[in-house]
């Protein structure tokens, strides 16, 4: 499958995966993230249930303190 991750196309094995899978594969270990799939916000409690498929557009923002 091919998805648009943070404005770049990336290939992944398989036909689909959850947000949790994606975070593990990409080593996105930051505790605080904001994630949008196809423009829609996905909350933390939905990471296990939200499925990403070929052609989806995924945005992952790391939030760190400081301001």
């Amino acid at each position, binding site marked *: 499958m091919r998805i648009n991750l943070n404005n770049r196309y990336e290939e992944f094995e398989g036909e689909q995966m959850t947000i949790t899978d994606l975070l593990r594969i990409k080593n996105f270990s930051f505790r605080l993230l904001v994630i949008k799939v196809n*423009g829609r916000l996905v909350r933390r409690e939905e990471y296990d249930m939200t499925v990403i498929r070929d052609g989806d557009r995924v945005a992952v923002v790391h939030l760190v303190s400081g301001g």
Partner: protein
Amino acid sequence: MSKIKGAMTDELKKYCVGIAGCGGLGSNCAVALSRVGIGRLIIVDYDVVNKSNLNRQYYFIDQIGRKKTAALMETLRRINPDVRVTAYDRPLAPQDVLPVFGNCDVIVEALDDREMKRMLIETILSELPGKPLVIASGLAGWGNNNALTTRTMDNVYVCGDETSEAGDDMPPLAPRVGIVANMQANQVLEILLGAMK
């Protein structure tokens, strides 16, 4: 040149920008937007000016102990009295987001704490979908100018390096905080005026 400048100033007067937080990011961003003549600013913060803020925040020695919203309002008025400033002196709760920022053309996330950042961003994305939102993430420390970027995802703009977290060995300091605050202000202008030709 002056004609273009006049048209730009007239255009900016039409718009309202909400700024959540009046710390290093919010105070510097508000100053930049006031200098260019934004029509209206809505600023929110619950804190008072502390001596330790002066290493990066747009406050002065004689404002220590004062409410940040009141002190910033005074500074903005000294810079440009035409900007209409509305201040909310309170912590921002999820239920405040819609009534406080609902009518803004752009919202700037200028909070310090990452949990607060997340709360604000998630609330705006779910309650005000499509509203342009300029957030900051990763600005502590010094140097490494070229790591600071702006990333666009639909209506969300992320300024900073998304990595440098503030901590005891990594303080937020005037240069980098100021750069990111001004990147946020610059992004606001691009959203309101369109990309530069």
